[in-house]
């Protein structure tokens, strides 16, 4: 009885909730669009060179020439923020694409074919999950060397287990459904069932998870760069800007706070959009 009440409850709440999410959801989307566009067209924007130093104009407060002031080397903060968005978003978007493609494929195959293959996939994922992600990322970067490419590959690789789990869970329940049985009865091949019947249904939960993964990846990239082990200097990244700004917290706190707020808002925006999409695809999670 209690379970029945609960399901009626969520069914009644969801549409209202969806409407309530409106402004917040769309502001998040707009923020992502603005950050994404300025990162993509950074070359075309009328901003200073982000690596151009001016030792006479160090840690200047915001002015007409430098809208957000200058950092400890006299470099324009706005330019560094925008070029930093480029680094953060490149890693933040590409790594989950890699993880999502490989992990999604593995998860779907495991959930569809079951048996030994599934056991092997889950076993390997258990091993990958045995390493705290940040520790593994740090260790591999230490050996491979710092570059945006290496960082993207490592973080992409680390994302595989989570995507595998999501894809496998979705495939497991879908593979039992009537439309799959019907397709099989019509003589469809495994490949056709996987691509034409299952993929369109698995895609949405995977995409919602992708957005949450973008948020996590941006945070991890930021943390690595903050420690000086991520995006190699002098190229700006939000994490390294915050790390540099920490040195001058006492007399120029904005140097750390401006990139910090930008990073926070971007991560929050991806979390909000991802969570809203997840709530749409998985009504059971609505209560969380």
């Amino acid at each position, binding site marked *: *009885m*209690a379970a029945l*009440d*609960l399901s009626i409850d969520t069914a009644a709440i969801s549409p209202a909730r969806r409407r309530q999410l409106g402004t917040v959801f769309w502001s998040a989307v707009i923020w992502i669009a603005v950050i994404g566009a300025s990162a993509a067209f950074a070359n075309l924007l009328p901003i200073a060179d982000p690596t151009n130093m001016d030792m006479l104009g160090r840690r200047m407060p915001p002015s007409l020439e430098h809208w957000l002031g200058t950092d400890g080397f006299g470099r324009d903060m706005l330019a560094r923020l925008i070029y930093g968005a480029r680094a953060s978003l490149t890693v933040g978007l590409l790594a989950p694409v890699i993880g999502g493609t490989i992990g999604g494929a593995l998860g779907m195959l495991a959930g569809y074919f079951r048996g030994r293959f599934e056991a092997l996939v889950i*076993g390997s994922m*258990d*091993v990958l999950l*045995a*390493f*705290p*992600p*940040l*520790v*593994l990322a*740090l*260790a*591999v*970067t*230490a*050996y*491979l*060397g710092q570059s945006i490419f290496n960082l993207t590959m490592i973080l992409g690789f680390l994302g595989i287990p989570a995507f595998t789990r999501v894809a496998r869970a979705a495939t497991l329940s879908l593979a039992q459904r009537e439309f799959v049985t019907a397709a099989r009865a019509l003589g469809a091949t495994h490949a056709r069932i996987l691509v034409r019947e299952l993929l369109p249904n698995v895609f949405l939960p995977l995409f919602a998870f992708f957005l949450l993964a973008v*948020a996590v990846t941006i*945070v991890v990239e*930021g*943390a690595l760069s*903050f*420690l000086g*082990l991520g995006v190699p200097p002098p190229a700006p990244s939000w*994490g390294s800007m*915050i*790390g540099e*700004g*920490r040195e001058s*917290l*006492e007399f120029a*706190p904005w140097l*750390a*706070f401006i990139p*910090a707020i930008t*990073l*926070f808002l971007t*991560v*929050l925006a991806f*979390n*909000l959009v991802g*969570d809203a999409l997840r709530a749409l695809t998985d009504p059971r999670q609505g*209560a*969380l």
Partner: protein
Amino acid sequence: MLGFVGRRILHLVPVLLAVTLMTFLIASLLPGDLAYVVLGDQATPEKVAALRHDMGLDQPIYWRYLYWLGDVLQGDLGRSFRTGQTVLQAIIERLPVSIELMLVAEITGLLIGIPLAIICAVKSGSTFDRVMTGSAFGMLSVPAFLAAILLIYLFAVQLRLLPATGYVPFGEDPLGNLRCFVLPGLTLALGEWPVLMRVLRSDMIATLQEDYIAMARAKGLKPMRILLVHALKPSSLTLVTVTGINIGRLIGGTLIVESIFALPGIGRLLVGAIYTRDFIILQGVVLFVAAGFVLMNFIVDMLYAVLDPRIRHGRA
């Protein structure tokens, strides 16, 4: 219960072995020859060849793995070629700091998260509930290094209440030692409580709709007693798992937090090893942390089975 423990241990052994294999492969297959790192760029090819021979680097990789595994199983994780200290010694010296930090963080996180979760569950749907759930969601988007900067700015720079960096051993000055852990612990706890609160809140809301809670209420039991005795334990299953899963995040968090607040723990050992390219320490610490993490998860699994009989009777 014995069968359950047996099955889990059977599962544990291959995972641990695979962890050693992967740690070894990361260190061996990736570019960057250890002999060059030790000798520097100026080394002659003969010297490098001699050192490679001494270190066994000219052996086939499977032999090297087996030798290394043999050493590891005897507790020999190697010796730093920078400081001469054995890896195990370095880890044991720093472990208490990391454990203290994680304990402070987890306890603070629970102290903030549990009461908030209970209040939110009781008043679910109220303004307080919505504000707290909203802030929890927002806090999940604040990475540890942002929280650290904010706390340092508030408590160390503006109010000058607490030290921004530094460490005093507990034996020398217990109070000073705790003061060193306030900001780092709080930094990590700020990331912990939202997760704990969200999980406990949603489980608690479900529990409070159970018939036996209505029964307890009808019997006239005090609301506090119903909440803390009848509802909290059955609601805390997921909380236990999440606390366990969080240890992985917490370990990642300690890397950053120890670096920021200059606490001499495992995280700082690892980051320092990367800065100085001390690959022996790096390999040893990665293996130690991963193995510790696997064992922690094993213990959480056991704890979960103790709390929930359905799991140990083979339904999971």
